[in-house]
């Protein structure tokens, strides 16, 4: 049986796809067979972030409609062993995913994989609800900013009431807070909510804090998940988050203001 983890946020553009790619890769690097599913129907992007956009032949909706098999559709990652991507459809039909169809695909994947990562679309409506419905755990991606924090709380409400686990009265979905795009400098100036501010409001366990980093954009330009950029703070922060997800104790880092030297600034550390 695979563990199903949804990466969700409510608000758009906070770093769900970046985090799904990084965390999925990190889990596979630990030797677990992992598949990352792009649930963002119509706005496929995970393929670009993973650098496999030119190898997409079939997609999630083709599998649900039985136009292709899973093995024809899954894309094997070229860099990381045991990692696969299930691309989203580019169809404009938002109703292309059905609960029954998704369930069938997840059940088939469950036989073969250890972890299934679901990259949710933005919003709190049907698409996002579909991505979280079958989840065992949720990574709630939040930026230290008012609308993102409020939307994260809304999505927590949905996880607690509209998921399969909630509807069936099973043990609730495991919740993890992932704070991304964190600027220690602005927090120190009192311009940005701090880690503990967001923890106080959302009151769920913290999985990690990913600093704002130029490495994220660079990695996405190249189609490399940023966790493979082991020189970058964002990459290392994602590695720590994966370790914590696997139950390891890791202290938080990159939360302090750093005095950057000229050279480091130039290289965009």
């Amino acid at each position: 049986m695979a563990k199903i983890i949804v990466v969700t946020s409510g608000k758009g553009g906070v770093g769900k796809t970046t985090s799904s790619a990084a965390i999925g890769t990190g889990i596979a690097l630990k030797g677990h067979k992992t598949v990352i599913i792009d649930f963002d129907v119509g706005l496929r992007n995970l393929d670009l972030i993973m650098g496999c956009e030119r190898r997409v032949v079939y997609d999630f909706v083709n599998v649900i409609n039985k136009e292709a098999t899973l093995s024809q559709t899954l894309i094997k990652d070229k860099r990381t062993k045991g990692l696969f991507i299930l691309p989203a459809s580019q169809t404009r039909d938002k109703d292309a995913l059905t609960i029954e169809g998704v369930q069938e695909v997840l059940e088939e994947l469950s036989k073969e994989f250890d972890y299934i990562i679901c990259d949710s679309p933005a919003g709190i409506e049907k698409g996002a609800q579909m991505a979280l419905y079958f989840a065992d755990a949720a990574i709630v991606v939040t930026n230290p900013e008012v609308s993102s924090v409020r939307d994260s709380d809304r999505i927590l409400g949905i996880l607690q009431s509209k998921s399969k686990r909630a509807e069936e009265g099973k043990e609730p979905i495991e919740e993890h807070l992932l704070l991304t795009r964190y600027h220690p400098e602005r927090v120190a100036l009192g311009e940005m909510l701090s880690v503990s501010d967001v923890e106080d409001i959302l009151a769920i366990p913290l999985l990690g804090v990913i600093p704002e980093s130029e490495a994220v954009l660079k990695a996405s330009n190249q189609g490399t998940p940023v966790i493979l950029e082991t020189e970058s703070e964002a990459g290392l922060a994602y590695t720590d988050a994966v370790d914590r997800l696997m139950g390891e104790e890791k202290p938080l880092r990159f939360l302090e203001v750093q005095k950057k030297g000229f050279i480091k600034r130039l290289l965009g550390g």
Partner: protein
Amino acid sequence: MGIFDYFKSKAEPSSASVAKDRLQIIVAHERTKRQQPDYLPQMQQEIIDVIRKYVQIGSEDVQIQLDNTDECSVLELNVTLPDQ
């Protein structure tokens, strides 16, 4: 940040702490609303309709809230009647 901003920021709370206060209020409010049963809005409307048979009030003049404690649930109804 200029020198004047520096002095000002001593008196005024930082914008992050304003953000935190606002978030705490709105999130608490939205959480209680979420935990209320689905029938509450409909019930509120019907109560308003009944009162309106006798007194003219606006929809905002009726506040309704369900509080759950360990022992019992309390339905709190607050109606503001217009001045005579």
